[in-house]
């Protein structure tokens, strides 16, 4: 089943709400293994997403998702901007025709391609990958997402800023995997609600 325009919009608005609530926490996570700006960068991005997708003239999920992509691309900066931007952009290309597992998988593939990262490199991929698998088997729950966030803790970073710390990156959650986790918790809450 495909998403409706309203579901797509509500999903992203809920994502925005959660990011803004957790802004400080995300920056604190980033402080440990990066440069400490993931929360403020993401908050700036989702605020722009909110502004862009409120527009009532958007009548297709793809239009909403593409607007969100452009907001993330132009407002987040750093590495997260192009990574979220690429994911949303590629999701927008199939969201009108395909169902959720395929849409999220398109996002996963875009992130892997852009960031040249694989599973267990301690990146966003370590959230998106397991979520795609869980969606395919219809086993995605909030508890699963929270466990998946925790599962990034023992990993050693191989990509991104944290990779520079090497062994020292072990023992911290990956901020990008956590912010992505909020995207999927928002998705569980808002998509398919009216079934």
């Amino acid at each position, binding site marked *: 089943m495909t998403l409706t325009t309203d579901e797509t919009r509500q999903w992203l608005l809920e994502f925005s709400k959660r990011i803004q609530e957790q802004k400080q926490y995300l920056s604190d996570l980033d402080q440990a293994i990066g440069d400490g700006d993931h929360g403020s960068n993401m908050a700036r991005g989702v605020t722009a997403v909110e502004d862009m997708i409120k527009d009532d003239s958007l009548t297709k999920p793809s239009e909403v998702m593409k607007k969100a992509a452009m907001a993330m691309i*132009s407002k987040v*900066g*750093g*590495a997260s901007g*192009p990574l979220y931007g690429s994911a949303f952009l590629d999701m927008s290309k199939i969201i009108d025709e395909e169902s959720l597992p395929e849409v999220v998988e398109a996002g996963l593939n875009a992130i892997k391609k*852009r960031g040249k990262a694989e599973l267990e490199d301690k990146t966003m991929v370590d959230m998106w990958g397991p979520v795609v698998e869980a969606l395919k088997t219809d086993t995605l729950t909030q508890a699963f997402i929270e466990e998946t966030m925790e599962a990034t803790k023992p990993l050693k970073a191989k990509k991104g800023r944290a990779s520079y710390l090497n062994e020292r990156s072990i023992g911290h959650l990956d901020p990008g995997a956590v912010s992505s986790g909020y995207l999927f918790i928002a998705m569980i809450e808002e998509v398919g609600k009216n079934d």
Partner: protein
Amino acid sequence: MKKIINDSSRVVDEMIEGFCFAHQELVKKIDDYRVIVSRDIENQVGLVSGGGSGHEPAHAGFVGEGMLSAAVCGEVFSSPTPDQVLEGIKASDNGQGVLLVVKNYTGDVLNFDMAKELAEMEDIAVETVLVDDDIAVEDSTYTAGKRGVAGTIFVHKILGAYARQGKTLKELKELGDDLVGRIKTIGVALTAATVPEVGKPGFNLKADELEYGVGIHGEPGYLRETLKTSKDIAKELVEKLSQSFTFKEDGQYGVLVNGLGATPLMEQYVFLNDVKKELAESNMQIAYTKVGNYMTSLDMAGLSLTIIEFSGTTEIAALNEEVTTPSWG
């Protein structure tokens, strides 16, 4: 922090305004974007570079006839976003495509890569040449692999000349990739840079200390020592560079001594004189020399030494060609 600024969050915008006023006959700013474009967009492949600000005159100072078509300015020490780079690409394209010259930092690579994809969606052909000339360390704070530093200006100048000669996008990409492999740089810092919005130096060196291999954003280098003479610093840097080259007696090389922001030209010339003596022992031929502040790190004291191994006289001619830019000189 002692700086001649107003609001630390506005330094990039105010700098761009001043820069475009000073060089209004050569460049202009695209409205609503931090993109500086040459007034003289020729009928050739466009050449676009950029990155975080704080490295002036790189990159906007190299916009003009014979070098860059456009430069995209990010916040201090952070990459411009893809929509900004896309504007630079669109302004530089006249149907023959655009070559991006990107320094190897994760943020820059991702943002320029995304911009490339957005441009391709608008049917503009784009290729990228990635510069990773800093041999000091592998993998650092903002980089997977080696960092891109002062050697980038050789890439701007040589590819700028080739683009003006009418080389195609594909040819420029191949020439650029080959060129980058023959450019190596290593730096030394005496003091750290202070990012205006941070307000304090990025790292601390004692009054009598220097650090070899520091990056242009203050990334850690490979060795801290008590302050040395210019002669000893030249010996260390040349020694380090010579490990990355096999200096050939009949080979032709170019040398760039680049000030990092707070080191006087006097010291840069003193240092060049010592580099010349060190290199003389390798019997190599120095066919090109350049000295000055070209890829700075705000107010960092120190300098970098770049050596390029020329593939032939065409590259030397390309470096010597006249250009009309604010800062090549």
